[in-house]
């Protein structure tokens, strides 16, 4: 599991781990808790281009649907097949095995720090 305090965050309750020119993206524990039991995850195809702020996938729980927004511009380098076959990973390990996509990004917008995100969700 990634150390949540060192990650960056978006207002859409996603976390971003930047390593070189690759961004790993998942949803936060707060978002997973709000969604409830995740039962289906739809991720973009590897190789597809994504634009920051656009919807590229869906995270469905039994009671609601969350949209996966691309936090960066770039190309999808990997999608987490494990989470597609076992969506409960989003609930059980949102910052680790529940990661969703890796994006080879061309530009990195300004994201929130852990402190800023914690303030956003009031924790």
């Amino acid at each position, binding site marked *: 599991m990634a150390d949540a305090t060192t990650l960056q965050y978006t207002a859409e309750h996603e976390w971003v781990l930047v390593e070189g020119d690759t961004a790993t993206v998942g949803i936060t524990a707060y978002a997973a808790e709000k969604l*409830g*039991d995740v*039962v*289906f995850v739809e991720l973009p195809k590897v190789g597809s281009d994504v634009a920051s702020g656009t919807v590229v996938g869906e995270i*469905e729980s*039994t*009671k*609601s*649907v969350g949209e996966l927004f691309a936090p960066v511009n770039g190309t999808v380098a990997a999608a987490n097949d494990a989470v597609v076959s076992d969506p*409960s990973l989003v609930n059980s390990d949102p910052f680790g095995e529940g990661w969703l996509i890796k994006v080879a990004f061309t530009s990195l917008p300004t994201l929130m720090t852990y402190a800023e995100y914690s303030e956003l969700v009031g924790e």
Partner: protein
Amino acid sequence: MSAPFQDRHIGTDAAAQSSMLATLGYDSVESLVTAAVPDAIAVGPIDSSVIPPAASEREALAELRALARKNTVNQSLLGLGYYDTITPAVIKRNVLENPSWYTAYTPYQPEISQGRLEALINFQTMVADLTGMATANASMLDEGTAVVEGMLLARRASGSASNVFLVDSDAFPQTKALLRNRAGAVGISLVETAFDGDVPEAFGAFIQYPGASGRVWDPAAVIEAVKAAGGVAVVAADLLAMTLLTPPGELGADVAVGSSQRFGVPMGFGGPHAGYMAVRAGLERQLPGRLVGVSQDAAGHPAYRLALQTREQHIRREKATSNICTAQVLLAIMAGMYAVYHGPQGLKLIAERVHRTAVNAGARLRASQVEVVDQPFFDTILVRVPGRAAAVVEQAHAAGVLYGLVDDDTVRLSFDEVTAFDAGLVDRVLAPLGVAPVAGEEKGSWRPASPLPASLERESSYLTHPVFNTHRSETSMMRYLKYLADKDYALDRGMIPLGSCTMKLNAASEMEAVTWPEFAGLHPFAPDSDTVGYRDLISQLEGWLAEVTGYDNVSLQPNAGSQGELAGLLAIRGYHLANADTQRVVCLIPSSAHGTNAASAVLAGMKVVVVACDELGNVDLDDLRAKIAEHADTIAALMITYPSTHGVYEHEVRNITDAVHAAGGQVYVDGANLNALLGYARYGDFGGDVSHLNLHKTFCIPHGGGGPGVGPVAAKAHLAPFLPGAAGTTHFDDPFIVSAAKYGSPSILPISWAYVRMMGSEGLKAATGAAVLAANYVAARLRDHYPVLYAGDNGLVAHECILDLRPLQAATGIDNNDVAKRLVDYGFHAPTMSFPVPGTLMVEPTESEDLVEIDRFIDAMIAIKIEADEVASGRWPADDNPLHNAPHTAQSVIVGEWDHPYSREKAVYPVSGQVRSKYWPPVRRIDQAWGDRNLFCACPPIESFAD
């Protein structure tokens, strides 16, 4: 005949009402409602009412008898998706006429709905088996709209960039008309084809199998070509024919749709019947409507519940797969039970007899020198009578037989279960074509060859599950239906206080006429002279509904509220197009609106713009004005629910409707909450241009466990030309058609007719008063225990109130779901959960509950609050207490050691007054996620129920 019907319908008598009024501090119902309803919208006196003074139950039934007598039931051979059928009496009596089935609600509380969920999974299994598809849903509104949904599914699922949908030229004419209207609204281009040449590029194709002409052909090559080009193949299949023919799934179809009417559901002049949709593996998430799946309960036992609900409009709003909510549950259950009763052999025997009857009829016609079109067929033959078709149809009608008129030279004869088992009747229906009767001994020896191609003969088995192979005797069938009904909680057990659902009395006298042959036996395309009584009844009811809503015209065609919404929005679209205002496409929808509003707007080709609500739950006028300014001359409509979905009479509604009109928009008032308004205010008087009503809420049509419904659309005169049935064309050419049948579901209209007839204007107003009184009484008595969200003028709610469970959850961890499930242990159906506000319960007692039952509910809610406080105090652990573990089955308190910190008695008999009639839930709390992660939507193997 001791009391007027009004006193039977309204649960609270004068003494009860005065005690409730005392609690609220009002001296009369009139003063209470007048204080709640804003002065600006209060209705004035109506000059000349068309609603007659209230009739007694006996008088109303006598009038209905007289109307029924004006109908003439002739033997229909009209076909086109509607066939005479024999409803097994055991199903008619134990399902259709049994309040345990017809007064239930949609199974959103699955623990207390296992009976009808099993019945629906039987239906799904039947459809999936017969069509050869992987997964079937639990019904569509009719076949025509199911085809439309198939088209929309094809567009979502197809990888093709094409905008074209191919339509079989041999499709039913009502289906073609529906496709035209609906495709036009969402920018799909239709291309009609006989599929006799190369298949044009398209995102999907629709094939009727067998065709409207009766022709049976092998569409496998066409399906392959459609799919090879990236398209999705949609096949409408006749379920009875599928017992003999290779089913669409085995022909490569992606989607199968159709009707289950001929499985024991009377034609009813058009409805209601259950349509169906089934898909191949991989398309489950694209299915519209409700889908029943198997999951497990807290004890690990298999349990049914609605699956994949996130597809639906109440969650996904404008991105939903469809706007459909109410479906045709009661009718789907009947059709499924028809298959349970007959079994695979029985169904095949019926199909073979129908086919044999058609084959013999064709041979006898030929022997009489009448030309029969030479093509393979199942149940329908085309007869050539050059230049005389209209005259032949008329002659047959005079002889009590209805032939289908195809063109000047051709008539169509469709055979069915009734003609198939009555040789004398076959003689009678062929006589108008000059065929002599056959002597009795010759009938059995006629064995002309079947024209069906051997290559299309069905080889695969179907309905192999034990449920379809067990209940052959009527005793067994009766007990199976009772076994299922006993699992469920319907209005015959107690109150169902579902907010926004209006679970009021469905009086027995209102239900009487539904099964009368003069109402049940008519084909929707029967000649006008056969349907005089029906059309009189429809015209009276339309007039009454127009009067109580303040509109000029009403169409009863829409089969559900969702379809009424769509019809209303399509009328607005038609109006703007007629005024050359093509840019008016924006539909303003408050954030508090039901998700169906947004889903319907998208299907009407509109763009949804959400208007914010303020902290009081009302439309934020500043945001509305800002949105109007922003979209200025592109505003098509505002959709607003009144009273609001929050159960409040919004004070500013007049300012809202005025602002929209000033911008050139039309106002759509959603009539879901009309039960709080009748007699006190009218939509048409405070700015509504068009509305839908829910006859299955305000006007007593039972919910049937999730349908049937009727969603009439009512409009001011300027929109009237754009309503279904108003264009002055035939039904098959109607540019505003929204249902397969012209009058939608006529056989259940006598219910609403009887309600209005027996209540009269005064009774309807008294019902409104009693409903508003009951809701305010509940709010007042529960306010100290649970915060009541939102109120209007003078702190009053309308006909429902929202209890906020979020503070309780914050303090104790007990949420609205725990409270809902614990109510089951107390013998109640939960209120509406998390609509319109997450984490809340919305309570609508309706006018029909008496004070004893209302108090019993209030006392249960207070007792549950005390239990929650025990959790908060730490007496019970958060993960082991009566709320967390609710509901408790009998088994759960009997089997094994009891190691919970509360007693068995506390678990299942929390209040002593309940001992007299305890409702035992059949399963414990159901794991929703497990079922969605392990999707299974057919009858589970029997072994899975072994302990």
